[in-house]
């Protein structure tokens, strides 16, 4: 009895040793695609840019993001955290550091509601920045409204994130992103027969599909198929078969990056790319995406809700360099990271106008609501908050395609043709929100 255990253990350890010693390594090709910054850590212009660490009474700031449960959108709060770290090392909010953390709702709206209630009830939390929840903006907004708490959300996904009083996303949202892909396909003359793919999560896939259909109806575009799948789906064959059978000339995928990558891998396995133009919303716009999906997908098109990562511009450069200096090397360099960064930057700029001794939820909320006409090279048009029941300030996006494994520019800003934005446009006009 003992003999066999001892022998087994010996064999195992020898095997492990052998494996370890034989572990010939594969060459390292990791990197940030074309999203590396050029500014040294000491020269970063964050907040006051004083170069001195803030030591005062910390200011509590939170966020809710969906980081697990099949979908990971934590790149937005990660970028916000990186920027706040940089601000704290550069004088903070007039001497007071920001104590920032985010919580994961695990794709469960019950948990979103709990976390939101917790933030709303905690008077120390002055505001929320860089949230990225894939579900539950509606339940969260109900709690925020009760506690007069406001959020500059990095990434809003479902419809409720864009039609809430206390939530204003920096990104444009899947609906705008998808419609603008359709507009691009139309401009390129590739919109003869369009197939759309998305998720069946409530208020997301159906809302985007409705938007695409409305735009298509108004512009005489033929939508040949719609497929909304479960976030935990792993069998993509039926989808590929449907796309083949539909005779589509182009496909719009409105799924998170990893799910899109899984679909594309299945398409590659079946060698079913054909002459179809495959496109994806901004959820795929990640500097790493090209190397993830491989050489088969040269020419794959994605929308980007903020600036393309390889373009010049002060804020874009600051984002890249802050990420290099303060975030993990494997934190995504994608649209949503830019959104979280920009949310944190706008929040910081707003707070710097306040008296540091008088920073409370009340004053911070007023400062956040007061953001109007905020220009950045990351955005196409200025961003604003303002008191309203819907917030969708970002509605112009860019398009890129994969060449040599990285995203390169196809078009600059396209303005959205979504008929549902009329209310937003009217408010911009009447309240003078964009200058």
């Amino acid at each position, binding site marked *: 009895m003992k003999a066999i255990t001892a022998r087994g253990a010996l064999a195992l350890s020898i095997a492990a040793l052998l494996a370890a010693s034989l572990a010939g390594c594969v060459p390292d090709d990791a990197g940030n695609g074309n999203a590396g910054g050029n500014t040294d850590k000491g020269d970063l212009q964050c907040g006051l840019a004083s170069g001195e660490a803030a030591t005062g009474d910390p200011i509590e700031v939170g966020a809710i993001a969906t980081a697990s449960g099949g979908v990971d959108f934590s790149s937005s709060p990660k970028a916000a955290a990186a920027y706040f770290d940089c601000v704290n090392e550069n004088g903070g909010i007039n001497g007071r550091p920001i104590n920032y953390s985010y919580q994961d709702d695990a794709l469960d*709206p019950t948990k979103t509601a709990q976390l939101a209630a917790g933030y709303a009830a905690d008077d120390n939390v002055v505001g929320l920045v860089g949230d990225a929840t894939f579900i539950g903006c509606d339940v969260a907004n109900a709690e925020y409204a009760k506690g007069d708490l406001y959020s500059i959300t990095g990434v809003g996904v479902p419809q409720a994130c864009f039609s809430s009083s206390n939530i204003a996303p920096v990104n444009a949202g899947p609906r705008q992103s998808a419609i603008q892909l359709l507009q691009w396909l139309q401009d390129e003359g590739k919109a003869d027969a369009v197939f759309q793919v998305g998720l069946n999560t*409530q208020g997301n896939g159906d809302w985007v599909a409705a938007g695409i259909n409305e735009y298509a109806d108004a512009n005489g575009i033929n939508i040949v198929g719609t497929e909304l799948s479960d976030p935990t789906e792993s069998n993509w064959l039926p989808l590929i078969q449907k796309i083949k059978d539909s005779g589509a000339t182009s496909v719009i995928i409105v799924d998170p990056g990893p799910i899109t990558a899984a679909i594309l891998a299945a398409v590659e396995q079946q060698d079913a790319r054909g002459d179809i133009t495959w496109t994806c919303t901004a959820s795929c716009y990640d500097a790493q995406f090209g190397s993830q999906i491989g050489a088969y997908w040269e020419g794959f098109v994605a929308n980007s809700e903020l600036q393309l990562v390889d373009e010049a511009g002060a804020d874009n450069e600051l984002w890249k360099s802050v990420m290099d200096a303060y975030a993990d090397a494997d934190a995504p360099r994608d649209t949503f990271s830019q959104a979280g960064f920009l949310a944190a930057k706008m929040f910081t700029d707003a707070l710097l106008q306040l008296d540091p001794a008088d920073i409370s939820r009340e004053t911070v909320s007023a400062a956040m609501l007061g953001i109007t006409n905020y220009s950045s090279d990351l955005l196409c048009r200025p961003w604003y908050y303002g008191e309203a029941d819907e917030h969708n300030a970002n509605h112009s996006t860019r398009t890129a395609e994969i060449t040599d494994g990285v995203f390169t520019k196809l078009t600059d800003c396209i303005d959205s043709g979504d008929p549902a934005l009329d209310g937003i446009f009217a408010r911009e006009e009447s309240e003078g929100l964009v200058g």
Partner: protein
Amino acid sequence: MSATVQQRSSRVAAWSPARILSARNIVLLVVFAAVLLFAPTVLGAYWTRIFTVCTIFSVAAAGIALLYGRLGLVSLGQVSLIGVGGWITLRVGHATSLPFELVLVIAAIGTGVIGVLVGLPALRLSGLNLAIVTLMLAGAFEVIFNVTGFPNGGDGILGRTEGGVLQQPLARPALGTADPDYFRYVIVVAALMFLIIGLHLSNRPGRAWAAIRQSEAGALAAGIGTVRYRLWALAVVSATTGVAGGLLAGNAGLLDPISFKAQASILLFATVLIGGAFSLLGAAIAGFLSQGLPPLLDAWGVDGNLIFVLLGLGMIQAITTAPQGIAGQLQGLARRIRRRLTRKNPR
């Protein structure tokens, strides 16, 4: 506790005033009143919400405990029944303007019927076979919930809104619109459910169930209709679990299929084993372990994922050395203290 139940020989004894006004019941009543009055203030907004959900799950845990502790049946699909109760509550709640309490009753009846219908073919099963069948049913329910979704104020049988129409949460009961009030509401309803289960246990059904667990053949010989009593157990457990689902639906007004996966049932079963399957206290502990411990770990800065490691270790420990669970150990402790206090004048 199981021992005392079996010793009770008649219904009359169970209802004598001395029994009802026993020290234990008075203490329970005082604790209950204190929780109702002060808990929301003491806990604060966040923890009140957490404990609301804990209480809801402890009702479902009581059902699992009844099946396992009394009938020796392992059901790994109880969270699916919470989902069924939630679905019925949302559907009926949106379709009619009935008061929430009535909707809860409908949910209880509906879930009871579905539980019995689903359980009917499985009635003859026991042991591992039943555990596997219930797990398979939980898997099937997961797929069904994914397809149907949960009603959110739309039209049609499924009651789903779609395509750019915002979802509509179900209104909370008039007595519990604010979080603290809803917490109290849930506590009262849960106490009612515990009372229903407790009364069953201390009366004829409880004794019949215990006999069936001891030996099915023996129970048959003693003239106990095993099928009838098993069905009744299934109905009671399903109905109370359905009420738990209704309370969960009322909490946020919306539900999501992600909360009702097969794995959630396995986790809840694990917490029941750890909490103790032989008493209602164990069920309450199980509710806390499943819904309250993860946020507590988070609040302490411990990775919430370690909950699985804790539950796994706890489960193995419960199976090997502490079959009565935490509740059993607590009760043992209480007994020892009482014995020490009353040692001077032994009965």
